[in-house]
């Protein structure tokens, strides 16, 4: 998979912080001696990520772990607070304005909610066809024909062009969202919980569409999901995030067969399976702490069944534990 010389997309030390500054009353209170201060959420904390051409990278984690923020940083909806994003081996800052505009189109995002992500007042032909016309990929007079062709790619009939989003079911809206992303001929798709809102039978159809499009159009995916079954099915490589940090990354087979980090182990064990009946659920304790006030040391230590003293003071770094398998856990330094 990763034989290409430079990855298609790479993040080096990327962080994204959200600051909430004190309002007027807060500033007065501080002047008067109150010990309140600005609040900072470290949504993404020094993440390194490389995605090779044609690869499908699955990004998993619980809600609030920063996986959607990372997806938005990758698709350039958000600017990182720190770190550098590389595209085809060069930092974005080195691209001139025209090239930057063109390369922006190459990364497209597919959103979770097929209801909220389509403008209810626009017809499908405009939802899907607006961007390629604006960016000069096609002349306006060819818009209808082009959109019909794009809809065909996602398995929808061209006769639906003039309809509005409310006339479609959830599965069809998902397909429209995918068609909209494909319309600007991207090379890289960021799919943020793209199948989470769909019924089981429709979810299978949309997943199949993603798999087919990857082959037909040589696409690269960053596939964000909390559903490990879905991630296991579509991904070549899996990245596990916890509270803004990457805790483990390895090939999909490796992650599910030999999870190294205690958090990944818990996640994998927690997935309900058809073939496990009346199981005795043995949950991991607690829930993901607030990113406003993350625990010191390893973020996972308050919930970790195997935490020891060092975990409480020092944040573990990602280290290779097997070829291509990286994990951030102090347990790997201990003789077993």
């Amino acid at each position, binding site marked *: 998979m990763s034989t290409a010389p430079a990855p298609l997309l790479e993040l080096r030390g990327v962080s994204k912080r959200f600051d909430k500054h004190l309002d007027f009353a807060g500033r007065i209170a501080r002047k008067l001696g109150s010990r309140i201060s600005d609040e900072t959420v470290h949504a993404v904390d020094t993440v390194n990520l490389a995605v090779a051409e044609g690869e499908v990278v699955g990004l998993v984690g619980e809600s609030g772990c920063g996986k959607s923020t990372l997806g938005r940083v990758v698709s350039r909806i958000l600017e990182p607070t720190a770190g550098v994003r590389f595209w085809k081996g060069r930092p974005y800052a080195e691209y001139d304005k025209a090239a930057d505009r063109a390369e922006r189109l190459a990364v497209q995002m597919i959103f979770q909610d097929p209801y909220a992500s389509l403008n209810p007042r626009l017809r499908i032909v405009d939802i899907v066809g607006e961007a390629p016309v604006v960016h000069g990929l096609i002349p306006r007079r060819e818009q209808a024909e082009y959109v019909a062709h794009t809809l065909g790619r996602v398995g929808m009939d061209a006769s639906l062009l003039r309809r509005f989003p409310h006339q479609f079911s959830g599965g069809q809206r998902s397909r429209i969202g995918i068609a909209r992303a494909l319309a600007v001929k991207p090379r890289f798709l960021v799919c943020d919980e793209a199948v989470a809102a769909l019924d089981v039978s429709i*979810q299978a159809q949309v997943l199949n569409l993603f798999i087919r499009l990857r082959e037909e159009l040589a696409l690269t995916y960053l596939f964000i999901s909390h559903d490990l079954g879905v991630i296991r099915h579509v991904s070549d490589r899996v990245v596990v995030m916890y509270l803004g940090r990457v805790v483990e990354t390895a090939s999909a087979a490796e992650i599910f067969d030999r999870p190294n980090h205690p958090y990944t182990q*818990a996640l994998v064990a927690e997935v309900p399976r058809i073939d496990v009946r009346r*199981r005795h659920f043995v949950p991991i304790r607690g829930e993901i702490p607030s990113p406003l006030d993350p625990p010191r040391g390893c973020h996972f230590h308050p919930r970790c069944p195997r935490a020891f003293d060092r975990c409480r003071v020092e944040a573990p770094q990602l280290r290779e534990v097997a070829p291509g398998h990286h994990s951030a856990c102090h347990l790997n330094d201990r003789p077993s």
Partner: protein
Amino acid sequence: MSAPLLEVEGLRMHFFTKAGVVKAVDDVSFRLERGKILGIVGESGSGKSMTGYSILGLVDAPGRIVAGRIAQNGRELTTLDETAWRKLRGNRISMIFQDPMMTLNPVLRIDTQMIEAVQAHHDVSRDEALRRSREALVRVGIASPDERLRAYPHHFSGGMRQRVAIAIALLNKPDLVIADEPTTALDVTIQGQILHEMQALCRESGTGLIWITHDLSVIAGLADDVCVMYAGRVVESGTVDEVLDRPMHPYTRGLLDSVPSRNERGRPLAQIPGMTPSLLKLGAACAFRERCPRAQPDCAEAPLATRPAPGRTLRCLHPTP
């Protein structure tokens, strides 16, 4: 033999809309014994939630129960008046919703809401009600319950809110709990914790549980019996082992085959073509026939529920072998 905890027989709940009659629940039958867990599986619009609402008498106009009986410990529920329902709901039968904010009042503290729920059904002092509330919070695994009791719902995370909603449902030690997708919006680790608590509860207290979900794998790990619903009808039911290991209805078969973990990685998933039909346009015919690989001309007639094996029901003329 004493009457089962819950017996539903030929339940039909229809919505009478301007556009026509929507048969949201169409001839549904099942029974649930004490301490057992029944899973109801189906996709959106299959009538699984409406079955739950019907059991609790929560059907509003234009919906109406048009036929069938619902008996709890042998007592008929469909003919109860509103006063009798008030005594029953939240007391002997309670419900957990997908969105905990359907249970919780955002402007009242947790203790206010829980004490009210106890005192509505039991003539006890405020202190005693508070003690029971505290106990219920501990039972669902909430740490530092005293502090939590004094908080408002917006102080809690989604998983914690759902636990509080579950604690309220369990407050009066009901005989029957109906849970409508309570873990769908939660992360797997939180889901695992809640499933663990519900399982322990049924085992220890003999409470019957109906778990409504679209997720077959949750049912596999949790339930004793399962009803698979499609377009308002139970198409197949039986023990979890029977139904999941030897599915007979092509729809159940299709659902199981489309679960990603049962497919080879990276290969196209087995998929059910098409989409769920509009309940408005359904005739008597098998609702699944247009998506069904085994459909024959005679599927245009209404398939009756048959008993292909002891404890199993099936509504299909051409079951999978």
